[in-house]
């Protein structure tokens, strides 16, 4: 079984709490650069994209931290 994390651009508000939570969980510090989930913000157009670094284990901590249900775990 493969675990994926799905991202909804429509729901994402760009708060980046997922990134802060990820870095805090794994490194006990807050750092957007140390996060394994990355939200890129196209602020001028109100758009957001998510991607995951190669270190990401799909643990789902970012999914739990999202205030807006923009991230979802999918088991395939």
């Amino acid at each position, binding site marked *: 079984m493969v675990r994926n994390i799905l991202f909804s651009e429509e729901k994402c508000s760009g708060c980046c709490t997922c990134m*802060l939570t990820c870095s805090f969980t794994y490194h006990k510090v807050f*750092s957007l650069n140390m996060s394994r989930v990355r939200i890129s913000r196209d602020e001028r157009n109100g758009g957001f994209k998510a991607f995951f670094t190669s270190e990401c284990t799909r643990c789902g901590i970012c999914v739990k931290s999202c205030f807006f249900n923009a991230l979802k775990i999918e088991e395939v």
Partner: protein
Amino acid sequence: MYGYAGRIVKIDLSRNEVKSYDLPLEWCRSYIGGLGFNTKILWDQLPPNIDPLSPENIVVFSPGAFVGTSIPTASRCEASAKSPITGRFGTSNSGLFWGFMLKASGIDILIISGKAEKLSYISIINGEVNIRSAEHLKGFDCWSTADSLRRDYGDVEVASIGPAGENMVRYASIENNYYDAWGRCGLGAVLGSKNVKAIAVVGDKPISIANVKEYEEACSEAYSRITSYPLFNLWRTYGTLVASDAYSSQGILPAKNFQYGTIDGWERCLRENLHKYKKKGISCISCPIACAHWVEVPEGRYKGLKLKDLEVTWVLEFGAKLGLTDFDKIMKCTEVASKLGLDCCSSASVIAWAFECFERGILSMDDTGGLRLEWGDEEAVLKLLEDIAYRRGIGNILAEGVKRASQIVGRGSEKYAFHIKGLEIPFRDPRGRWGVWCFGYLTNIRGGDHLRVRAPVELFKLPQPKDEYWLEACGVRREVIDQLDMIEEFKSRAFINDGEYINIPVMTVWSENLISIYNSVGICIRPPVLGTIGPTIISKLYKATTGINISPEEVMEVADRIISMQKEMNIAMGETRDEYRYPDRFYDEALPDGPNKGKKLDREVIDRMVSEYFKLRGWDPETGKPGEEKLKELKIEPSKFYAHVRI
């Protein structure tokens, strides 16, 4: 240091010099961060009698102490300087990511002094600070400036000024990327006077905290409190636009420069219409509310226009105040004012003044260069915004702000200039709904403004008793009051008759103190936060984040300290007791329409309330001067410029 970056950076533009200092540990306990740090810096370094647009002025940016962490809504960064619009302590607050990136660059306080020889921008990339030529950005609007710097540096956060700042319009804003701003007090003009076009910042220094377990517990408590706020979902859906309906039903819109409390067609600007424009909610970093709306115009002349907007200040200021009753026209005004780098409240107010003067024949087409100024004509508004930003024609007078513009024009126009202490007042008509919010226009350190004095309970459910000034009808259930995170001694005095009423002067002091702390720790003043987060939880969060133990009482004492310092600075800059008054219309003309028709304000009673407010603060009841004893009690170190012991 935990929570803090530990560094102060001072840029002297005249000497083309960047210096770095350690953040004194004792400042953390005494001033916390953000607004507190800015107050301390200006207290120590800003001479009171300088021209705000001279190189002697100092601009300070400090992110709040919680910025850089995941504490809900901890995104806010304070910018302060001597204000060119009021000539007093000027300060403004903005969220998004800029403050986070400053902290992640290893900077708690950024001080900018002097004047660059040529137009410049400041780049702060991973902690390395450089002053660079911005000649290629001259004349660029704020959005193009952000675009250009992002092309050069990638995902930097950009604080910039537009043409309004370059031309030193006295209420020019500093825009925060595209749609946010340090809006009030004309700090954009101060940057313009220093030849600073922009500050681009990005950093990747990690922020450490003192106690992980305590942090997780306190953060989780803060999150639960905020999201359990009874109106949380309403705020997430409509953001500040919830106020549009409330103001309309109370008849307290600022219609046509406060001539009326209602306006035909306002039903198009009620919250139920938001869904036709709104595509999604947008947050600042670490915010669970997402009060901002990404909106697009679906049809009509401005079809396709998209931006972050329909925040209620824009809707009421560019809407009701100027007679515009369509979201799409208001959005167009927002776009233009944001690009030009103009403060929303001040620019809408000065244009409303010009419209009323035109209506009354004080200004003619000879004065306006042939432009007809008519309520509801967005093209006239857009033309004036451009003229103001470029100081063209009558725009050159309007660029001075409503107080100075009315003094220049004269001919009785002063009567229609809506400001307090030189700062244009925002959108709630105090006659129709009196309370802490409107009394706060008077007491606010920065002048006529609503963002520094707001009670943690704000509901219009119960009508305000007629001719009652000292008490405000509360309308909040007793159990909500019981759960408020408020020092008990204050709570027992602020709520009267088992919570039926609020004691306005007491709650004004509490609210000012609470918001000063919010602006020092860097959290947001939206009601889901304001109604749930107080000194107890802030004290827990602060200890967990920084390791510094500070009691809830000590947290509130910091607010008392910084407000007293700001007041002392304002007095040294020329503030007098006479300035604690509303524009005459609010006293002399009854509200002509709506459910609160017939109401006006009482000069004498409100003046007594001002004395009571001074007394509650421990300041001189007549002059409002904090004075030697109060400053000593608050352990405020005298400075070269402001001191109980003059040096």
